[in-house]
């Protein structure tokens, strides 16, 4: 990028008025302007902070677990239970209500004597494993799958779609038939085969392989967008200015297609959680004793009436992660679109009417 001009030049200019005038005409690049607009988007910033907090919290709680089952690479976390540690199941009168087992010890009401986290804040599962450890571990796995699948699908889909749409001709035909070929194979079958082959190699490898097959929809969308944008006059203008194909694709056309890419990637990230859930449900994805948010929910789907907390916690994390991703995507889309304006609500209209009367 060019046009980056730091404040250094103007620092020596002296008088305050001059400095303001200089600041206004200071050249900002596209990237700088987008960043400025993104930071101003309140929803996106809150979502970004929340997501970073969730990631730090879960990863530090359960520690890092990479590698395959046989030779794991592990960094221990701060929570005192692991996902395989068994402790005594809590049950009985005065401990759990309604004869439930493994109820949570988390008490948020400060007037109660047992206020605080307790030993098992999220409760325990059927055999007494600590549910907090399980949820943390599951969130960690799901975030990993989501980011890897979304990121890989986004990058591959954008590049293939952009190349096909920009160059057209034979290359376009080849790339689109390839896309068709991959679309015709049902996702769940690809997932099952991949899960069967590499499921025990850990969630990172699983995510990478799934990412190789999740770019098709985005590639189609980006291609369509490029087909129409490449005919616009500003592309000719850039070519006359001497821009290379690469520069035209990435600097001129791609920012105009960013809205569609972000919407599609955020959707596919939420879809990735569901795909992983489905695979785990079929026994191909994350294999026991390891867990993911999806496998936790599907394992305990029968317990909703009697032990709802087995449902709440993983559900809460899925929803907050998906919401954060969508808000960030929204903020990015708005930041890239300079035309973004506020909509008129009925309330605004009413207020203006009363003001004029």
């Amino acid at each position, binding site marked *: 990028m060019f046009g980056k*001009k730091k404040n250094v030049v103007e620092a020596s200019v002296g008088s305050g008025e001059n400095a303001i005038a200089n600041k206004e005409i200071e050249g900002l690049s596209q990237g700088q302007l987008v960043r400025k607009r993104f930071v101003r988007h309140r929803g996106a910033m809150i979502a970004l902070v929340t997501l970073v907090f969730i990631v730090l919290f879960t990863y530090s709680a359960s520690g890092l677990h990479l590698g395959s089952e046989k030779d794991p690479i592990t960094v221990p976390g701060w929570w005192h239970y692991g996902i395989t540690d068994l402790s005594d199941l809590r049950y009985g009168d005065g401990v759990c209500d309604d004869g439930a087992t493994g109820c949570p010890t988390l008490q948020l009401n400060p007037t109660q004597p047992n206020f605080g986290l307790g030993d098992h804040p999220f409760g325990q599962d059927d055999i007494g494993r600590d549910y907090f450890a399980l949820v943390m571990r599951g969130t960690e796995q799901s975030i990993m799958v989501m980011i890897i699948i979304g990121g890989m699908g986004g990058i591959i889909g954008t590049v293939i779609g952009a190349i096909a749409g920009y160059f057209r001709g034979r290359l376009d035909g080849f790339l689109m038939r390839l896309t068709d070929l991959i679309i015709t194979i049902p996702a769940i079958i690809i997932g099952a085969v991949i899960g069967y082959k590499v499921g025990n190699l850990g969630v990172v490898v699983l995510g990478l392989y799934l990412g190789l097959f999740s770019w098709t929809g985005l590639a189609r969308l980006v291609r369509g967008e490029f087909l129409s944008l490449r005919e616009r006059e500003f592309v000719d203008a850039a070519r*006359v200015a001497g821009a290379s194909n690469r520069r035209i694709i990435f600097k001129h056309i791609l920012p105009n297609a960013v809205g569609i890419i972000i919407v599609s990637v955020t959707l596919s990230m939420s879809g990735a959680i569901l795909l992983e859930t489905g695979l785990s449900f079929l026994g191909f994805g994350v294999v026991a004793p390891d867990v993911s948010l999806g496998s936790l929910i599907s394992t305990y789907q029968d317990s909703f009436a009697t032990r709802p907390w087995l449902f709440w916690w993983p559900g809460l994390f899925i929803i907050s992660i998906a919401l954060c991703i969508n808000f960030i995507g929204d903020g990015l889309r708005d930041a890239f679109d300079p035309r973004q304006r506020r909509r008129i609500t009925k309330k*605004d209209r009413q*207020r203006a009417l009363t003001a004029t009367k």
Partner: protein
Amino acid sequence: MTQNVEPILKVENYNVEFWVDGVWYPAAIDMNYEVAPGEVLAIVGESGSGKSSSSMGLMGLLASNARTSGSVRVKGVEMLTANAKTLRTFRGKEVAYIFQEPMTALNPVYTIGFQIIETLRNHFDMTTVAAKKRAVELLEMVEIPNPEKSIDKYPHQLSGGQRQRAMIAQSLACDPALLIADEPTTALDVTVQAEIIDLMRNLKDKLNSAVLLITHDMGVVADLADRILVMKDGLTVEQGTADQIFNRPQHPYTQSLLAAVPKLGSVSTRPAVPTEVEPILELKDVVIEYPKRGRIPAFTAAQDISLKIYPGEILGLVGESGSGKTTIGRAAIGLLPVKSGSIKVAGNEIAGATPKYLQTIRSHTGIVFQDPASSLNPRLPIGESIGEPLFLANIAKGTELNHMVEDLLDKVELPRSYRNRYPHELSGGQRQRVGIARALALNPDILIADEPTSALDVSIQARFLDLLQELQEELKFACLFISHDIAVVEILAHRIAVMQHGRLVEVGDRDQILRNPRDEYTRMLLSAVPVPDPAEQKLRREARMKLRG
């Protein structure tokens, strides 16, 4: 006009306001006018003056963030407070609209016959057969050739002028008492425009309808209007008969508006440019073809074009849409491949050049595109757009580049602080200035200007032409100025080339082409240009009728 006749449209204390970001912005303030049967009232003004939105508001056709107040009566019935049902019976039947762009106003998936029949059957209890018969009659009335066959054609199968005729036929379907024509000829070529204006005049006389004509083209107004209402920023500036407004304008704005309109034959002679030197742009027997695509056969857009432009010269290239003038401009800068012939820019051959070689040639050339809204990347701040050629040619980077961008902005008289704005935050005229700044960034020897003023208002166009002339005198670049507007070309050009159907019909000195055209087509083209003077336009009209026979 006759005052004892009941007016068809009577507008009193009429206001239109739009709700934008928490504030009501007025688009039309306290308008008062009436239109009698058989009378043409023209509302003129520049874009943003509220002429279009005020007329859309008459029949409640505005977006939901608008509100109207005052009184609008059509044949004595109040429209602003009328319920949806009354409005619906009036729309189409009593009040009909003709829109600017017939391609978007006609539905592309239905035949024009179907659309006319639909309008008829919405308002009258008619059988399909009877409606079809009436539709053929209407098409005949608007002089569409072969109406029985044309009725089954889709909008894309008709030419621009025929589409506009079809739309007029549709709006006339129910013999409306009031016809609202919103820039009915803006999207058309001058010769077609002249035909449509004639058609509208004849129909108005035949049907005795009232016409509300909304336009920015003073030539059209002079040709058609009985009375004129001038608008600026939502206010009615002046109102009077065509003769009053054109010959004795009272308000300074009307005077400046009329002064800004380029008049054919009003410019003094220009000194000729030395032609004994080597031409900066030379086209020799150039043929340009759009290749076959699927079942669409190859199309030859330009044939046997030979042209020379000398240093410091402005050559005006005129012709109607589809004549291939834009094709020439784009080929001259290497954006279109040449099938045969040779194009030389400053002695370098463009035809068949490698992309790398083209890059070096392009540092000699600059291009200003027709539509500034589309030629500037909407996601790129304009400072970056202007600086891009400099950056890519490795001339400047960082601070140095910033200074050069500032210089260019100064040159085209834009504030330096605009560099961080996005194109949509600028007005049309400002955007076109950005286009010029970008084209001049590399100090080109030749500038190709492809209809740079067609999207601009007259007063902005006048300022833009002044700026271009000043820059040309200062920087001495040669210029290929492509335009459909002969009056604009007259102001700028030293020589003029006329194109028709992909061929050059005539090339010559400006004065020779304008005063003494040799080619039949050039004469047709010149006679079709409306002149902003009712009396003179009447004479020209009659002369044209004679020419056409």
